[in-house]
Structure formats: C-alpha cells, structure tokens
C-alpha cells in the first residue's frame, strides 16, 4: 500500500512543475482508490464475519449497510463529481486510480512467484517465511520497473528523434514509441490529430517493422478514445501487464488446489521450479531461499512476455529496449544492494578493487578499480541488449516472412506464396519458442551468477568477476 503512495507522490512530484492539474489528479485518484479499498476491507470483514458458520446468527449487522452507503457516496460520488466537473484531467486521474490496483496486482504476482517457489505439500513451511519478505522486495522492484519503462521511453524519445526508426508496416501507422503519461496528456490532442495523418509511408522503407497487434486495430476503430490512444502509445506496457496477468492466472490455476500427487499443470510448474532450484542451488547454496523468489519472478515474467509475442495479434514487451533495460537495471540494483549487504561496505569496496592481498595487487589498484567498475556497469547493458536483440530479431524474422507472403498475395500468387511461407513461419515460430525459453533462462541464470559473485566466498576467484561477463 505505502508503495503506491510513494509512486503516486513521485509521479505527482514529477508532473508538478509542468502540469499541476495532472499531479493533483493523480493524488486525487490515488486517495479515492485508497478510500475505496479501506471501505472494501471493512465491508468484506463484516460480511465474512456475519456469514461465518460459528457465529450462529446469519444477521448482517447494521454497520455493514452504513459502511456500504458511505462507500458508495464517498467513492463513486467523488469519482463522478471529479469527472463530471472536469476539475481534473481525465488521464492522470485514471493513472492515480490504477496505481494502487497495479501495486496490489504486482504484489500478488510476486506472492504467486514466491508460492510457486515452494511446492507446498513438500516444503511449504520453511520457504513461506522467506518468500513473503522477498516477494515484497520483488514487488517493489517490479513496480519500479513498470514505472521506469515509460520514463526510459521518454528519454528514448529524444534519441529516436535523431534516427526515426519505428513504424508499423501494414497499417497507416502511428508512432509506436511508448510515451509516458505526461507526454500523453500534453500531446494528446496533437497526437490524435496526426495519428492518421503521419503515416508510415515516408519511413516505411527503413527501420523496424511491426506486425499489427490488437491494440493497433483497436486504435484504428476508435481513434479518438483517450484510453485506447493511451494504450496504443504505451502498448509495450500494456502487454507487459498482460503478461504479468497471464502468468498470475496460470500460476493460480495450477496451484489453486495443491495436492501431494500433482496434476498436470501443477506438475509442470513444480518441474520448472524444481529444476531451476537445482541449477541455482548449485551456485547459491544456502543463500538460495533468499534470492530464489526474485530469480523465479524474473524468469517467469520474461518467459511470459517472450511467449506472448508468438500468439498472433500480441507483442513481446521484451522486443523493446525500454522494458529489457528496466529489467536489467532492476537486476543490477538488486545485485549491487545485495552485494553491499552481504559483503558489508568495506568488503564491497574490496570486491570492487579486486581483493588486493599482496604488494602486486595494491600496485595494480589504479588499473583494477576502473576495470571492475566498468565490468559491473556493462552487466545491465549486456543483459538488456541480449534479451532485446534475440526477441526483437525473432520478431523481425516473422515480420519479414509475413511481409513476403503479403506481397505475394497482393500479386495474386496465392498458391505459390502461402503454403511455403506458412510453413517457414511456423518453423521459425518453433525456433522462437526455443529462443523465448532459452533467453528467459539465460537472464535468470546470469542474475544468479551475478548474485553468486557478490556472495562472501573464500574459494571463488575475485579476479574473474570483472572480465568474465563483460
């Protein structure tokens, strides 16, 4: 809960200098939702208390109705009044409303990951305690990730102005760069105006090509709807949330009724988790329970995001550098913070200096420190570029094949074009599945390796830490 307040205040602070109205709206939406949840909490407690069989009388207390009335009046009345009077802009209000939901959703997501980390029937008790804390941490990092994505995208906007490289190939295309809510509000009118005018025509020959997804199609049908427009501007974010949701629902279905003899889905998830546990456990040893929820959360999140892109009409969020960079930066921060916690501030500095123990080591200090710092800084770059490049490359391949098929269709060479192209596309989709799994695995395993290097180990060689994974 407090995290959403933090996020709301941070966002509001970010917006305050330029658009005070938007900042106000975010805070208003946030408080409205907080009140809503407060009342919901009370109502549910009262209701379940009344319905519990042991209380005997199935009377719903009067307080229930009082709370319900108050809630309806305050929350819905408030929301209605806010929207009706147009006291605050619409988009930031929605933003504020959704922030709390988002945080709750992410928290439950991470809980699910922590859950999945312990095949319940066998060793629930010992992991449950640790996974709770780790899940909170992971949820926080993921909130940061999702917040960071639009901000990074905004930074990326300036970069892409130099080399304008994004367009949809088949649609009268709109700028596909996700912009942050701030830009969305400010340039909303302008963007809607030239969303159709600025076709991909002049750029269509170079740069990235995207297959249209359902958000693009939705945007074509409802070009003036602000929500659809926002979704279109931030389609990577939407698909990232969707991926989280899919993963959450899947885990929930699989682990809803855990049995000692697992069913198909439960078996699948337990197999994934346990084999990952084996691999990571080999490196992390007794530190595994502390880090495992984070690693698994990263793994499942990336896996879902990768795999969702294979479904026609959907898009991999990881095929943009913004999302992967956000994920990699989170991993980087997590690793560094854990390094400081594990090694202690002095030990961390010692690690950065390459653990000099003899006279030669100390003589090499001026060289070793920059090398090690560079080695640390290169990690997120290589992590994010690897994931982005692989997923994006596979996506582009499919787009190229579909484009060839579309060209042949245009020239009415159906018999010639479609069967072989469908075959090739299907083949590469198989390959894409493999890439998706392997890349998710590599990302999480590298996270494990980085974490392992930050552990206080006597036996492992510090000297390799800097160069090995640069």
């Amino acid at each position, binding site marked *: 809960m407090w995290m959403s307040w933090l996020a709301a205040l941070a966002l509001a602070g970010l917006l305050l200098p330029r658009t005070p109205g938007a900042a106000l709206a975010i805070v208003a939406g946030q408080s409205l939702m907080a009140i809503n949840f407060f009342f919901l909490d009370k109502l549910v407690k009262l209701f379940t208390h009344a319905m519990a069989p042991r209380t005997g009388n199935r009377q719903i207390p009067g307080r229930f109705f009082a709370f319900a009335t108050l809630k309806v009046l305050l929350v819905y009345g408030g929301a209605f009044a806010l929207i009706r009077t147009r006291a605050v802009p619409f988009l930031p209000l929605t933003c504020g409303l959704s922030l709390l939901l988002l945080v709750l959703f992410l928290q439950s997501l991470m809980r699910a990951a922590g859950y999945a980390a312990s095949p319940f029937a066998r060793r629930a008790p010992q992991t449950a305690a640790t996974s709770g804390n780790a899940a909170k941490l992971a949820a926080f990092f993921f909130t940061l990730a999702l917040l960071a994505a639009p901000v990074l995208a905004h930074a990326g906007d300036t970069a892409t102005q130099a080399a304008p*490289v994004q367009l949809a190939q088949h649609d009268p295309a709109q700028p596909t760069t996700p912009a942050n809510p701030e830009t969305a509000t400010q340039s909303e009118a302008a963007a809607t105006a030239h969303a159709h005018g600025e076709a991909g025509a002049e750029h269509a020959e170079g*740069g990235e090509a995207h297959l249209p997804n359902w958000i693009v199609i939705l945007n074509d049908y409802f070009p003036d709807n602000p929500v659809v427009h926002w979704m279109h501007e931030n389609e990577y974010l939407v698909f990232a949330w969707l991926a989280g949701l899919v993963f959450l629902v899947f885990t929930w279905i699989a682990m809803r009724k855990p049995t000692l003899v697992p069913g198909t889905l439960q078996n699948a998830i337990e197999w994934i988790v346990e084999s990952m546990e084996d691999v990571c456990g080999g490196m992390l040893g007794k530190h595994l329970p502390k880090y495992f929820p984070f690693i698994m959360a990263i793994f499942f999140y990336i896996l879902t995001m990768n795999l969702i892109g294979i479904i026609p009409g959907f898009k991999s969020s990881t095929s943009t550098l913004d999302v992967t960079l956000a994920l990699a930066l989170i991993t980087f921060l997590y690793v560094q913070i854990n390094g400081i916690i594990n090694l202690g501030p002095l030990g961390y500095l010692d690690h950065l200096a390459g653990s000099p123990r003899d006279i030669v080591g100390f003589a090499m200090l001026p060289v070793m420190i920059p090398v090690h710092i560079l080695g640390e800084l290169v990690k997120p770059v290589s992590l994010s*570029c*690897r994931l982005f490049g692989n997923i*994006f490359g596979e996506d582009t391949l499919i787009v190229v094949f579909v484009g060839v098929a579309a060209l042949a269709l245009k020239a009415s060479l159906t018999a010639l074009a479609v069967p072989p192209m469908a075959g090739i596309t299907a083949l590469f989709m198989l390959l894409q599945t493999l890439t998706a799994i*392997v890349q998710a695995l*590599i990302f999480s*395993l590298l996270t494990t*390796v980085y974490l392992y290097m930050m552990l206080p180990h006597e036996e492992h060689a510090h000297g390799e830490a800097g160069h090995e994974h640069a």
Partner: protein
Amino acid sequence: MNFAATLGLALPIGIGLAAIGSGIGLGFMGRGAMEAMGRQPEVLPKIQVAMIIGFGFIEALTIYAFVTMFFLQGKIQ
C-alpha cells in the same frame, strides 16, 4: 562513396563477420561440451547448463552487431 553507401556496405559485412566469429565460438563450445558429455554422462545436466549460458554469451556478440545494425539502419537513406 558517401556516408550512406559506406554504411549500407559495412553493416551487412559487419554482421557477417560477427556471425562468423560467433559460429567459431559456438563450434568450440559445442565440441567441448559434447566431448565432456560423452566422457562423463553423469554430469550431463551441469554441463548442459554451463553450455547454455556460454551459448548465450557467445550468441550475444552477434546480437550486438545486429542491434547496432538496427540502430544505424535508419541513417541509410
């Protein structure tokens, strides 16, 4: 030979070179891993994991070239 032409010539060649290097690296890696697996089948999972991670690193080099190409591709016009 202007800038765009140079870029248009150099980018595919660059990717090809990167792919050659990565291919050689993958070949060495795969050979080593296969030999190790053949010699000691009982540590197969460990070798496989290390192999996949190594593949990731090697493959990343080509991917870097690929990403660079996409960043620079917009300038060929």
